[in-house]
């Protein structure tokens, strides 16, 4: 935990962005990102994820509040701070006539890297992202996967301490997506990452922290484990195998247990909900005993409430259902 605020990688305070007095894109966002954190930025379309990232990069100026990156206030002219950041926008665009070598050289020069530093580095990166064979070809003919790899190389050319990747797996085929996630995991061991994504499975796999934005408000910021744990705890789904009558009989018996708030059977799926405080191990032990007594086999067991996607959806739903109460209890939300 960073004790000194200057040790934080990113710190925002009451960050608000209103576009031309017409659209509130971000509202009162206060968060801190510590070194080594791999933060997944979640939120539905229009939640303010890209606006948040653009404010952190200094591409936009806050209407109110501030952003500090590496302890320094981020402004459009804070080139020194941006030299420590690697960024991939949602749909990275490249000058179509340029080759990967020319483009990476241009980007490295934008970071002020002298030739003896940038030339070996760009060569290593082109090799690392497997673009060696096409390093002299125009980018215009590149596939989505190739441009994504070039974007990765671009974001690493300055050896940044903070990586900000906006939808890095967007538009990638499964193989390229898998490679990207593996790369994020590798980079996450030595760098601080902020990854925005619609794909909650990706966030679940590579991030250790999450921030959830909904309609411009930060409704959650903390560890991914907490996010998964705090929503719908003790909610399980069992897939069963056995006689349908036996399953029904077992379900009836389980309904009699006091630990369970609801027990539903849908064909061969048994959905169990306990109260948050209930001791799940002993209750589940009783369930397995009952199933065993009725000669029902368990094919799989899934903790529904522990899924990031469910937790995220619950959070957004809960936030929206608060209605006007948000105006008075905004402090509790995050």
């Amino acid at each position: 935990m960073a004790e000194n605020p200057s040790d934080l990688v990113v710190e925002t305070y009451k960050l608000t962005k209103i576009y031309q007095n017409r659209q509130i894109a971000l509202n009162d966002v206060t968060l801190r990102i510590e070194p080594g954190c791999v933060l997944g930025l979640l939120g539905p379309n229009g939640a303010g994820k890209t606006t948040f990232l653009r404010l952190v990069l200094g591409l936009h100026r806050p209407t109110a509040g501030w952003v500090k990156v590496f302890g320094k206030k981020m402004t459009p002219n804070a080139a020194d701070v941006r030299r420590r950041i690697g960024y991939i926008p949602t749909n990275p665009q490249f000058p179509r006539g340029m080759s990967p070598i020319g483009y990476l050289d241009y980007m490295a020069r934008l970071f002020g890297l002298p030739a003896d530093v940038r030339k070996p580095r760009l060569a290593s990166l082109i090799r690392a992202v497997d673009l060696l064979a096409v390093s002299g070809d125009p980018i215009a003919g590149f596939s989505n996967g190739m441009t994504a790899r070039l974007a990765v190389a671009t974001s690493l050319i300055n050896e940044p301490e903070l990586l900000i990747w906006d939808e890095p797996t967007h538009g990638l085929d499964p193989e390229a997506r898998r490679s990207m996630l593996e790369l994020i995991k590798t980079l996450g061991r030595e760098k601080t990452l902020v990854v925005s994504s619609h794909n909650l499975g990706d966030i679940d796999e590579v991030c250790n922290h999450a921030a959830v934005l909904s309609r411009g408000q930060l409704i959650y910021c903390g560890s991914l484990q907490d996010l998964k744990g705090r929503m719908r705890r003790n909610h399980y789904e069992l897939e069963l195998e056995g006689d349908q009558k036996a399953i029904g009989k077992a379900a009836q018996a389980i309904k009699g247990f006091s630990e369970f708030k609801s027990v539903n059977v849908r064909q061969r799926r048994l959905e169990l909900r306990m109260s948050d405080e209930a001791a799940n191990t002993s209750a589940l032990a009783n369930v397995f005993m009952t199933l065993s007594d009725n000669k029902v086999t368990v094919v799989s067991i899934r903790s529904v409430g522990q899924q990031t996607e469910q937790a995220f959806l619950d959070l957004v739903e809960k936030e929206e259902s608060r209605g006007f109460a948000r105006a008075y209890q905004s402090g509790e939300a995050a």
Partner: protein
Amino acid sequence: MDTPAPVKRARVRRWLPYWAVFQADLRQTTRSWVYLVWVLVSVLGAAGYLLYRVGIYHEAGMVQSASQLISDLLRWSVVGSITLIIALAGGCISSERGTMADSVLSRGISRYQYFLAKWHARMVAVLSTFLAMGVVALAGSFMFLHGDLSLTGSLVALATIVTLLAAVTTCGVTVSAIANSTMLGITVLWVLLYGAGFALTLLPAQYPSPDRVLNNLPTTLRGFYDLHALGRLAGWSALASGLIAMVGLGYFARRDI
């Protein structure tokens, strides 16, 4: 949470981002269709005008002085070029707004450096091209025409026009940094420049105006010029360029991209 080890950062050259954008913009400008159209139209227009004058000489025996001919050439190439120079300068920043500018401005370059690099690159492209064309025209006229041209007068005339074009280019880049769309920027710039040009003609005679300077080109080319008045015009143009650029720089450094 594991805290990553501090990274040893490579040394940086502070003005390298400026040079990178400057060179990229210069290359991009000289390859753009607006630039190529400008050069082509200017060269063809000049050649056509010379043929017309030669035709008149052969058919009617009318001889036009070199100073008048070059003055006409410069005057019409300036008037004709303004619209294309406006298009060239007026879209330099606004046309790159969005993801393209993102990929540059999210790196280690300040808005000041980006604006200055764009401004200087467009100035170099426009002014050096105009100077090159002007020098070729002058050299040709010294060699082939019955000369009443003065070398110093010719250089002063070229320098005066270059000062005016510098102010026009600066206005273009500034409007481009302020406007949200290229078309809007070019329209505003066009109205602004032609409006300002007209307004300046209404000033009393002792004040220098672009129109008067262009009207006096034949005498300037013959070597009769008021260096003090032209110096004042150049000074005012430079001052106006500087102030306009400051406005553009200040605005661009604060705006959302």
